[in-house]
C-alpha cells in the first residue's frame, strides 16, 4: 500500500511534466492541425539553454529558489525564440501547402535539431545543474513527499492557471480561440492570424521550457536526443486526452505518467516504451477523438 | 417498375433535421428532377442515396433491395453512381484514367494477371481503353485523354465528371448541379447532351438543380424540396403553377 502510494505520487509528478509538453502539441495541433514533431526537440534545447546559462552565471551547484527562477526564465525564453524561428522559417512558407508537406517539414526540423544539437552540444550526456535540494518535506502514511514532487506539482498548477487566464481572459486568448475554430473567418474579422499562430507557438514552447527544467531537476542528465522519446510520449498523452483539447492534454499527461510508473513498478521496465505506443494504438483504433476530444470542448 | 424507392428518409445532424421524412420514387428510364432553393437538403439526399451518409430513419430501395447504410462503393457496384456539385475529379492523373477508374469494379483479372500481363489482362485493358475513349468522345474530350484532369477548363471538368460516372456502367446516375457555374448557352447544350446520354445508354437520371427553369425543359417529373421537406411533386406544368413552389422560390427567382 505504502509502495503504491509512493508510485502514485511519482506517477502524478511525472504525468504533470508530460502534461506541460503535451499542451504544446495540442495547442499547435488545435490551430494548425499539425503534429509539431519539432516540439520535443525545442524542449531539449530548453534544457541545454538552462544548462549553459547556469554555467555562464555560475549557478551549476547552488540549488535554491532563485536558481529555479533563472533556469526557468532562460529555458522559456530560449524555447520561445527557437519555436518562433521554426514557425517563421519552416512552417509559415508552407501555410497553404498540403498537410503532408508540413508534417514532413516538421520531421525534418526535428531531425535537424537533434543532430545539430549533437554537433553543437556534444552527443554525450551532461549533468543538469542542481535546481533545488530534494528534501523530505512531510511523511504521510510512510510516503515521503519531497521538494521535487511539490515543486513539480506547484509549478504545473501555476502554469495551468496562467494558461487558462491567457486563453479565456485576454484578448489574445480570444483571438487564439477564434483562429483555432476557423482561421479564414478569424482572418476576415481582422485577426492577424500569423501573429496569433506565432503567439501560440510561444505559449506552447514556454511550457515545454518549464517542462525541460522540471525534467532536468528530477532526472539530471540531459543529452540532445532526450526529447525524442519523451516528446513522443507527451504527444501520445495529447492524443489520449483528445488532441486539440487543453484539459485533455492535462488528463492524458497524468494518465500517461501514472500508467508508465505502474508498469515499471509492477510489470517490467523493458516494456515501458512500448506502453505509450500501445496506448496510442488502442486509442486511435477505438476512439480516435481521444478521451475529451469532443467538439464541444474548447479547442485552442 | 420502381428502380429507386425512397421511403420516408430522415437525416438528422445534432438538432438539425436536414431532410425530414422524404419519400419519392423513380421509375426505370425516367429523368427526374430534384429541385429546391439553396440549402433545401438536396445534396444531403444524394449523400444518403449514394451511401455517404446513413439516413437516421427510413429506407432506400434500389432494384427492390434495401441499400440504406451500405457503403458507397457497394451502392456504386449495384448500379447507382453520382457526380459531385463541387467537382471531385482525380485531378493529378490523366483524363482517360479518370474514366477507366469507373470501370474498376467490372474488372475481373487479378493482381497476378496484371503482373504477368496475361491474356485476360491484356484483353480487358484494351477493351476498357477503347470503351473509355468512346465515352470521352460524347463530350469531344478524347483529344485530351492524356492530359491531367485538373488541367482541363472548368466546363470540361464538369463534363468529365459525367463521363467518369458513365464509366461505372450505371443504371441510375445522380447528377448534382451539373450546370453549376456554366453560362446560359453551355447549360443549354449540357442539358441536351444529358437527354441524349439517357437515351443512348438507357439510363435513369436523377438531376439536382436549384434553378428550376433549367430543369423544366427536360425533366418528366420533379420533386421540390424546401427546408428538408418535400413540398410538391409532379410534372413540370404542375410544379410551375404550384403556389407552394412559387412561395419557396420567391426571392431566389429574382437572383437568377
Amino acid at each position, binding site marked *: 500500500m505504502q509502495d503504491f502510494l509512493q508510485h502514485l505520487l511519482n506517477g502524478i509528478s511525472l504525468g504533470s511534466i508530460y502534461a506541460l509538453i503535451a499542451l504544446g502539441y495540442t495547442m499547435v495541433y488545435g490551430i494548425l492541425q499539425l503534429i509539431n514533431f519539432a516540439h520535443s526537440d525545442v524542449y531539449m534545447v530548453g534544457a541545454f539553454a538552462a544548462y549553459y546559462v547556469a554555467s555562464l552565471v555560475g549557478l551549476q551547484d547552488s540549488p535554491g529558489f532563485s536558481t529555479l527562477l533563472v533556469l526557468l526564465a532562460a529555458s522559456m525564453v530560449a524555447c520561445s525564440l527557437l519555436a518562433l524561428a521554426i514557425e517563421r522559417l519552416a512552417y509559415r512558407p508552407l501555410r497553404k501547402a498540403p498537410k503532408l508537406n508540413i508534417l514532413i517539414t516538421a*520531421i525534418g526540423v526535428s531531425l535537424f535539431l537533434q543532430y545539430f544539437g549533437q554537433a553543437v552540444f556534444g552527443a554525450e550526456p551532461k549533468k543538469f545543474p542542481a535546481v533545488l535540494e530534494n528534501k523530505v518535506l512531510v511523511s504521510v502514511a510512510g510516503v515521503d513527499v519531497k521538494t521535487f514532487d511539490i515543486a513539480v506539482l506547484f509549478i504545473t498548477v501555476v502554469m495551468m492557471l496562467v494558461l487558462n487566464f491567457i486563453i479565456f481572459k485576454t484578448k489574445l486568448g480570444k483571438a487564439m480561440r477564434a483562429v483555432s475554430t476557423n482561421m479564414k473567418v478569424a482572418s476576415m474579422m481582422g485577426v492577424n492570424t500569423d501573429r496569433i499562430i506565432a503567439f501560440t507557438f510561444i505559449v506552447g514552447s514556454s511550457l515545454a521550457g518549464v517542462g525541460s527544467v522540471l525534467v532536468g531537476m528530477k532526472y539530471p542528465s540531459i543529452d540532445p536526443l532526450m526529447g525524442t522519446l519523451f516528446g513522443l510520449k507527451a504527444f501520445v498523452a495529447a492524443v489520449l486526452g483528445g488532441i486539440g483539447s487543453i484539459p485533455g492534454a492535462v488528463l492524458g499527461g497524468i494518465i500517461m505518467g501514472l500508467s508508465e510508473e505502474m508498469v515499471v513498478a509492477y510489470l517490467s521496465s523493458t516494456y515501458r516504451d512500448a506502453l505509450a505506443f500501445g496506448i496510442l494504438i488502442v486509442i*486511435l483504433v477505438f476512439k480516435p477523438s481521444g478521451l475529451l476530444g469532443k467538439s464541444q470542448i474548447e479547442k485552442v | 417498375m420502381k428502380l429507386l424507392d425512397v421511403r420516408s428518409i430522415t437525416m438528422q445532424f445534432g438538432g438539425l433535421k436536414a431532410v425530414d421524412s422524404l419519400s419519392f420514387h423513380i421509375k426505370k428510364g425516367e429523368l427526374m428532377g430534384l429541385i429546391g432553393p439553396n440549402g433545401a437538403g438536396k445534396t444531403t439526399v444524394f449523400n444518403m442515396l449514394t451511401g455517404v451518409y446513413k439516413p437516421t430513419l427510413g429506407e432506400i430501395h434500389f432494384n427492390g433491395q434495401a441499400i440504406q447504410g451500405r457503403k458507397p462503393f457497394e451502392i456504386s457496384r449495384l448500379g447507382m453512381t453520382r457526380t459531385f456539385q463541387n467537382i471531385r475529379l482525380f485531378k493529378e492523373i490523366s483524363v482517360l484514367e479518370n474514366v477507366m477508374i469507373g470501370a474498376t469494379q467490372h474488372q475481373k483479372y487479378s493482381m497476378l494477371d496484371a503482373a504477368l500481363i496475361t491474356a485476360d489482362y491484356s484483353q480487358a485493358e484494351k477493351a476498357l481503353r477503347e470503351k473509355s475513349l468512346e465515352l470521352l468522345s460524347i463530350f469531344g474530350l478524347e483529344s485530351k485523354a492524356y492530359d491531367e484532369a485538373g488541367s482541363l477548363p472548368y466546363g470540361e471538368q464538369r463534363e468529365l465528371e459525367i463521363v467518369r460516372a458513365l464509366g461505372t456502367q450505371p443504371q441510375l446516375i445522380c447528377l448534382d448541379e451539373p450546370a453549376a457555374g456554366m453560362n446560359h448557352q453551355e447549360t443549354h447544350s449540357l442539358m441536351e447532351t444529358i437527354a441524349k446520354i439517357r437515351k443512348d445508354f438507357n439510363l435513369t437520371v436523377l438531376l439536382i438543380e436549384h434553378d428550376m427553369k433549367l430543369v423544366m425543359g427536360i425533366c418528366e417529373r420533379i420533386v421540390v424540396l424546401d427546408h428538408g421537406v418535400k413540398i410538391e411533386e409532379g410534372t413540370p406544368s404542375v410544379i410551375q403553377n404550384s403556389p407552394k413552389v412559387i412561395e419557396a422560390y420567391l426571392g431566389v427567382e429574382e437572383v437568377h
Partner: protein
Amino acid sequence: MTALRALKIPFLSFLVLIVIAFIGNFALDGFVQLLSIYVLINMILAMSLNLVNGYTGQFSLGHAGFMAVGAYSSAWLSTQVPFLPGPLQIFNFLLYAVVGGIMAAGAGYLVGLPSLRLKGDYLAIVTLGFGEIIRVVLLNTPAVGGARGFYGIPGPTDHDLGGFVLSKFLMGFTHAGFWCLVTFFVIWRLMESSHGRGFLSVREDEIAAEAMGVDTTQAKVRAFVLSSFFAGVAGSIFAHYANYLSPASFNFQRSVDAVIMVVLGGMGSMSGALLAAVFITVMPELLRPLQQVIGVDIRMIIYSLFLILLMIMRPKGLFGKLELTDLYKRWKARKS
C-alpha cells in the same frame, strides 16, 4: 505465349544485372561491393514505400518495422532449414526472402486493417507506433538475440566451382538484384492495371473513388500488404548479407530514411524513388571524409536541412509524379 512475352524485358534486365554483377565482382573493392548491395536493398525499400506513400497517398512512418519482421523471420528460418549444397543454396535465400516477405505482409495486414481508417498524420503516428512496438518486442525476444542482436546468420559464401569462384558478392548481388527487378516490374505493371488505378484514386479523392465503386479500404490494405511484403524481402536480403541483426538497425531513423527516399524522389515516382535510394545510400559515404575532418556526424544535419528546403522550394520532390520515361517522351516531343 503471352506469359513468355511478359517475362522478356524482366529476363533481359536480369541478364544485364548478371553482367553488372560480374563486372562488379572483378572491378570493385569489397567496400563498394557491399555498398552496391545496400543500394539495391534501399531501392526495394523505397519502391515499396512509394506504393503506400506515393501511389496510394497514405503516410506510413513504420516501414522499418516491416523490414525487421522480414529480416528476423528470415534469419530465424535459416537457422532451422538445412542448406542445399554448393551454389544451389541460392534457392535457400530465395525461400527465406519469400517467407520473410510473407511474414512482413502478414504483419502489414494486422497493422493495416485497423489503422488504415485513420487519415494523414494520425496514420503516420500509428504506423510509427507499430514500428516501435515491433522493435521493442524484438528487443525482448531472447530467441532472436534480444538486445544483444542476432549473431551468425548464414549468408552467401564463396564457392569454388573447379577454378571459377562463385563469390559471396556475385551471389548476393544477383539475389538482391533479382528482387529489385521483381519489385520494380510488379509495382510498375500493377500501376498500369485497374488495381493500380484503384490505389491512385484513393490518393486523389477517397469519396469520389468510393462513388466510382472502388473499395477504398481494400485498396489501402492491399497496397499496405504488398508494400510490407517487399519491405520484408529487403529485410531478408539485409539479414543474410550482413550476417547480423540488431533491433537498433530498425529504429525510427530507418523508417525516416525510407520516407526521405520517397519524398526526395517525388511521391508517386518510381524513378525518383530509385535515384533517391542511390543518393541516400551513397551520400553518407561521400561525406565520410568531411566528417573525419570536422569530427561530427553531419549526414543527418544535411539530410534534414535538405528535407526542409525541399518541402519549401520543391514540395513535390525532385521528380514530382513524373517517371524518367515521361521526361524522355517530353524530350523527344520537343526535338521533333
